[in-house]
């Protein structure tokens, strides 16, 4: 990717230990939490699951706990703030597939978010003259619509590379916003009121999913985020993830190694777009109102900033980045006006000092590679510093 990525001149007899030290040094330079991912990977599987369960339970309890100092109150309702943060987190997870994995700079991602929002609004709002369907049905529909447009945009443009792709996607983002302004059916600035919500009422007969109650929306979105994260993890540790990272690293070499690069780029675009559409529909439902004001270029850039800030290519980092981007203006209302200035400055600082983002982590691209690697690392401990390990045949078997 850069000129420094060429072959490094280490003598061949450099011991495995020396390379391991170099790698550790590189990682320390990249992250704010040195060795965090190392330590995480070294934990046994059961411990990892246990920690994850605790984190997830804590995440679900957040709206009830309303932790002091962290909470956005009194300036903003904490539950609604959480709902908005979760939507941004989901957006970042989706965009991370496109930008982080496949390395395709998409500056018009807000278009897919908008498509999702409009799908939800136009099929549920009483302001819309079209067929009305239950709100929950609009979630898969929004995904399908966004995915369709992702493919429509991707097929002609993904033959472009780098800056050119960024320019075309930037244009696409504007097209959707401008269409929303000029097509009468999309109602421009007037927009759609009373967008639908999931069914269900509480004991007093009030609907559970009100625009003024953030908690159910937060729980719904959080559940969807977890499902999407699991799916993204499955893709990452498979042929698909390897193809994406290979494309990001060296597209020509990937093609020559038998990766159908175009196909996988379109898939990255389509999957990213569908998650964008899904988050748009959730956003429309929670806010209850959709017009053309929310989907400008600045929002698109904010999405990219969320991914880069969290740690490009790291899905957990994307969740963090997305939540932070939504959280900071809500928490620090005094500086909310300057949010773009602050995010701009923060990004510059992060890029200078921590180019990997807040949570830099390398993707693990082999679903069953853990055991093979651990065996190797175990074998390394047993050898003299200059010696080489000779693996016995079959020792690298990846069965867990």
């Amino acid at each position: 990717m850069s000129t420094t990525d060429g072959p490094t001149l280490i003598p061949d007899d450099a011991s495995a230990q020396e390379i391991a030290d170099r790698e550790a040094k590189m990682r320390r330079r990249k992250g704010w939490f040195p060795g965090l991912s190392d330590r995480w990977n070294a934990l046994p599987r059961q411990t990892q699951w246990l920690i994850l369960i605790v984190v997830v339970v804590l995440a679900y309890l957040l709206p009830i706990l309303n932790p002091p100092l962290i909470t956005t109150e009194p300036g903003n309702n904490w539950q609604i703030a959480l709902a908005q943060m979760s939507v941004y987190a989901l957006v970042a997870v989706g965009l991370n597939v496109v930008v982080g994995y496949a390395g395709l700079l998409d500056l018009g991602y807000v278009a897919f978010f908008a498509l999702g929002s409009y799908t939800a609004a136009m099929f549920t709002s009483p302001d819309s003259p079209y067929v009305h369907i239950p709100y929950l049905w609009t979630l898969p529909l929004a995904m399908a619509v966004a995915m369709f447009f992702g493919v429509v945009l991707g097929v002609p443009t993904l033959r472009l590379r780098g800056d050119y792709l960024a320019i075309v996607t930037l244009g696409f983002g504007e097209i959707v916003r401008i269409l929303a302004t000029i097509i009468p059916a999309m109602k421009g600035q007037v927009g759609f009121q009373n967008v639908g919500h999931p069914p269900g009422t509480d004991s007093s007969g009030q609907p559970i999913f009100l625009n003024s109650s953030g908690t159910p929306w937060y729980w719904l979105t959080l559940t969807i985020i977890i499902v999407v994260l699991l799916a993204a993890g499955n893709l990452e540790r498979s042929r698909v993830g390897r193809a994406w990272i290979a494309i990001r690293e060296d597209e020509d070499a990937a093609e020559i190694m038998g990766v159908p690069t175009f196909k996988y780029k379109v898939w990255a675009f389509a999957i990213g777009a569908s998650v964008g559409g899904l988050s748009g529909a959730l956003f429309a439902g929670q806010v209850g109102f959709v017009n053309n004001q929310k989907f400008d270029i600045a929002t698109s850039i904010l999405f990219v900033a969320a991914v880069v800030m969290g740690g490009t290519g790291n899905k957990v980092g994307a969740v963090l980045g997305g939540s932070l981007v939504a959280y900071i203006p809500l928490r620090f209302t005094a500086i909310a006006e300057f949010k773009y200035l602050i995010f701009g400055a923060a990004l510059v600082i992060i890029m200078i000092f921590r180019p990997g983002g807040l949570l830099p982590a390398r993707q693990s691209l082999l679903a069953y590679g853990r055991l093979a690697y651990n065996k190797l690392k175990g074998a390394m401990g047993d050898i003299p510093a200059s010696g080489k390990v000779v693996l016995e045949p079959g020792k690298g078997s990846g069965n867990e």
Partner: protein
Amino acid sequence: MSEAIEPDIDVDALKEQGVDLEVAERVAPERDIVTKVGEALVQVQNLTIKFGGLTALDNVTFDINRGEILGLIGPNGAGKTTCFNAMTGVYKPTSGKVLLEGQLLNGLPQHRITRRGLARTFQNIRLFGEMTALENVVVGLDARHRTSIGGALLRLPTHVREEKTAIERGMALLEFVGIADHAHFLSRHLPYGYQRRLEIARALATDPKVLCLDEPAAGFNPAEKEELMALIRTIRDDGYTVLLIEHDMKLVMGVTDRIVVLEFGKKIADALPKIIRDDPKVISAYLGEPEDDLA
């Protein structure tokens, strides 16, 4: 191809029974290993490539026979790498054909050519830097995998089996080229010689019929070149056909079965190494014409 792959090959037990396990079998158990030597596997016919007014390759014709190591040599700028790029689909030939097992390769996308069985390495190493050595090799193995998005999302049994065997074969390949103990390092942190070996392993992982090596010994010292020669011979003995571009005459003479010489985009010789060595045209291409001939 229809038989299920047995993921756990008990290598040790087989070795005890005196079975000589060729890497080709462990790496690609479904492969038909054709050892019949002699018939033309790749046919390059009247290949011409022009970049604007410059003719990089001019009507070049040669065959690569099954089971041989063919050397492609020539002075700098003779068109060796251009020829490679035309064969692997990077450049579209101005005219002429490239056939693999009688089937036309021209116009196929590069990844399809790789899947037909033509794999290559790069003159300037092009590994996936942010991937580990093992992951690099598994990308190559993916060329033969049949499950994709659906299988990965749902972790279907076929997909899981493919993933598991991929790791096993990947490790076997790394072991074959001698860098298995570095499997878990990012490839950009590997020493230079190991990166070259990893490129060979990654190309072998695509299960090629023909392996094209573009100056694999560039930057090697004599001892490393010896090791590489041995490795290339082993690859050939395992049933692969090898096309080798190389500058180092000693290496080329030592390892190849036949040599094609290019000069200014034209083929000037195609013969056994010992004949090439004494061919006046080849000598003059490399060393220039003797003084008295110029007059």
